[in-house]
């Protein structure tokens, strides 16, 4: 049975003076799968390693169940926290066979060696590797090594399983299959799971709860649906997938249903857009409109239902249909626009924006990226690992 995890005002400052965690608080119910999401350097690995006991926290308190495992005075060593972990590089001991690697995790249970071997083999069977128990890690493929690491983490039936980006070294196909396996195995084990990733699609697919970290601070905590529908800031919105951003001005007349009307500061704007406020906004405020890919529809320029006009810059076949990138007058790009039909490059199109996926934030919160043009896909885009993947529009 999973343990309740309590993180209270945790901070971590490294010897070099750099702050990795800043006043992080959260509570995870037993058996819940929590995914910590954030870019490189956001502190997610530090938080995970602090839970494991590999890192010492500088401030705050960590509890597993009713036991305080770390605070200003206490630091329970990793081996006494009764947890298990899947490492990013799997960390399989190369001189032990797959079976021995898994059996090692049972030593803490005080079982006789023969029983450990039997249980290890049974666990390897569960992950589909029963026949390969006698092989050394170097004789296994990446996916098989990953499964051994998962078996090692689950075999001892610990109350807390930690996963440090375990899918990051796998190719796309294997990644998806392993994601499903991890999801079902940790839920079968009923263990509380803390999983870290920088891939928001992986996070949303796996999580019961998502915690988004930015520069050491927990900036949002909730269900995947809550975070997608109501991101707390432009950072969270960007990190969980945007088609584009537009500088806008809030108009006097609210659109009703809790929505605001905003006017885009672009010559491509045809009519005001109804949007959901992400912050306190008043008439005339400069603001930022964050547009989810799911909120954009293509329409003909002579139709009267579109809010923006632009030119198709790129079209990509995605199997189920086509994703278009449209450039507005002054170069702002709206991308990931799904359509069943292919619109050729260079064609003028209208863009209809749907209110549930249009989020408006105050100008000050939006200060980091004034328009989507600052973060176009292509040569000027940040490295792939840093850039949030766009969620599929359909």
């Amino acid at each position: 049975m999973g343990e309740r995890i309590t993180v209270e005002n945790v901070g971590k400052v490294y010897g070099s003076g750099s702050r990795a965690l800043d006043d992080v608080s959260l509570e995870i119910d037993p058996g819940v799968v929590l995914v910590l999401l954030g870019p490189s350097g956001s502190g997610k690995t530090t938080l995970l390693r602090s839970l494991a006991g590999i890192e010492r926290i500088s401030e705050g308190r960590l509890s597993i169940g009713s036991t305080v495992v770390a605070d200003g005075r206490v630091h329970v060593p990793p081996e006494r926290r009764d947890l298990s972990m899947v490492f990013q590089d799997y960390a399989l001991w190369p001189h032990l066979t797959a079976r021995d690697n898994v059996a090692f995790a049972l030593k803490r249970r005080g079982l006789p060696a023969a029983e450990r071997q039997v249980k290890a083999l049974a666990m390897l069977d569960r992950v589909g590797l029963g026949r390969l128990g006698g092989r050394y890690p170097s004789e296994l493929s990446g996916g098989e090594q990953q499964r051994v690491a998962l078996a090692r983490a689950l075999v001892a039936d610990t109350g807390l399983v930690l996963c440090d980006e375990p899918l990051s070294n796998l190719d796309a196909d294997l990644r998806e299959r392993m994601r499903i396996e991890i999801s079902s195995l940790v839920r079968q084990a009923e263990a509380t799971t803390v999983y870290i990733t920088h891939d928001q699609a992986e996070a949303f697919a796996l999580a019961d709860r998502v915690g988004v970290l930015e520069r050491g601070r927990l900036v949002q905590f909730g269900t995947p649906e809550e975070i997608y529908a109501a991101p707390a800031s432009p950072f969270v919105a960007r990190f969980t997938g945007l088609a584009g951003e537009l500088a806008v001005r809030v108009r006097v007349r609210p659109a009703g249903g809790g929505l605001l009307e905003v006017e885009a500061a672009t010559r491509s704007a045809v009519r005001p857009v109804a949007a959901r406020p992400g912050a306190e906004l008043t008439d005339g405020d400069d603001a930022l409109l964050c547009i989810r890919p799911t909120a954009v529809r293509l329409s003909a320029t002579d139709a009267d239902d579109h809010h923006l006009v632009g030119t198709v810059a790129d079209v990509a076949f995605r199997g189920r249909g086509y994703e278009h990138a449209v450039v507005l007058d002054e170069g702002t790009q709206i991308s990931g626009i799904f359509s069943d039909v292919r619109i050729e490059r260079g064609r003028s199109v209208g863009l209809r924006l749907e209110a549930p996926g249009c989020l408006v934030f105050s100008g000050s919160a939006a200060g980091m990226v004034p328009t989507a043009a600052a973060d176009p896909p292509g040569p000027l885009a940040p490295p792939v690992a840093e850039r949030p993947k766009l969620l599929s529009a359909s």
Partner: protein
Amino acid sequence: MATLVGRVPRPAALPAIRALSARGARLGRPALWLVIVLLILAPSACFLVLAFSPRLFSQGSQWFTLTFFRQVLTGTTAVALLNSVWVSLAAAAIGVVVGFPIAWLTHRTDLPARRLVAGAMWFVLLLPSWLPAIGWQRLVQPDGVMYRVGLDWPWVTHLVMGPFGVVLLLGLRAVPFSYLAVSAALTGLGQEFEDAARVHGAGRLGALRLVAPILAPAITSSIAIGFAESVSDFGVASTLAYASHFPLATYQLYEYIGGFPPNFPGAAAIGWLLVASVAVPLAIQARALRGRSYAVLSGRTRPVVRRQLTRPAKAAALGFVGLFYTAALGVPGFGAVSSSLLADFGASLKLTFTNYDQVFRSSGLAGPLERSLVYGAITASLTVVGGFVFAKMLAGARSASTRMLDFLLLAAVALPSVVFAAGYIFAYNLPALSAVGINLYQTVTLLVIGYVASSLPTNARVLVGAVSQVQRSLHEAARAHGSGSLRAWFRAVFPVLSKPLTMAWLLTFCGILLELPISSLLYAPGSPPLSVAIQDNLGNYHFGTGMAQAVVAVGFALVAVAVVLGGYRLLAPKGWRRLGGWTRG
């Protein structure tokens, strides 16, 4: 369009160039094999076969006999062989016992000055074994520095000038090999393995116990290499061990050849036993590791957390490391420098620069230094080119021929230098070669060929790591963007390899400058290289002059390192300097 038309004739010329280069490639490979056969295989094979069949080359009456093996397995030679084996085992053990902790301290703790400790290890590795040996020897010999300063300690003399001293010197020599093997393993052993053990229930000690076997291959390698290096060593055998009347196999082989008449079949029998003693541990090590790769390196291995040593632990660790460097460099360095400042005869302690004055004024003393500098430069230049060609072959597609080349070069690296040189003496003195007009015996040319042939396998193996990392696309990209093959190589590939090639040149140059076994056996009469001249001076009781020559030689080697590395820093384009490290690969 006009430009395109203007370039039309060029593709027409290409087939001819391609055909020529293809022919060159077809001829080049057999030519390289011919070089390997003539320079490396044939001389050693001709020599070693004498142990069984002396009549084959008119060295006896039997077509097949084991007499010479029986001969060398009795009397003094048997004692020497036995000595070589047990002394080498002890030296390998010292290598691991000292090298492992130093590697761990420099890689896993916050030991002060650990960069200096790591850098100095290279100095110990590159110093030929005879130099520290004569440094120690001149310190403790009955008329040595120790007695001249009034320390009348005969027990120290007996201790150092005997089996203990020989084991100590060879053991100190084995330390860098252990250090490097264990360092490489520790570098690849990320922190995760310990973390994983702790997270899954192992205490601090349990985690260490779990992780330690991952280093087993490195420790096995250390023992094998330490043993192989010690058993094939000629430097300590011909200096400290010889002066201590403690016979070792390599020096016995030298005496078999140097005696009158020379006993080549007997020397060949010793050669076989030496080759076996080097090959057996290396083969056992390779077999033990087969199928159990402990390769743990990955691109994302987490950097280790250095253990913070307490103040007493730091002091103890520094004391241990300091003791090693004192024995490996400090004592012999002091012995060499101090005895070079003393007059040769008498018991006075008056310091003088007479010996240095003689080295620089007397052409007979400066000559060997100049000679060795020239030999070193020629050998290093030829070897780097040849080594690169071999490395390129090894780094190419795996075929039966590259596997064979790989094996031969590895075997040649393991072949003791003294056996290699003995093969040259014998093969190039054969009447058959004279009959076809090859008269290289006792010439400088043969000495340089011997240097090149002995350095080539090591150089190829050093360069293969770097060469195999150069992607073919670098060259292809330059070709695709308009450079000819040769220009493409110099513009796109050479800059990437310039550091490893420079380093290989430097390593060979320094090695040849102070090389002893091949020099002793192959030097042309009247033109002794530096190491032989120093040994002659010491043998003729000109201790001060000999030691002054040795000190000056080490000084020149250091200056050469500074000039080459400094020159590279100053002259190489900035982009070249930013590529890679100074170490191989």
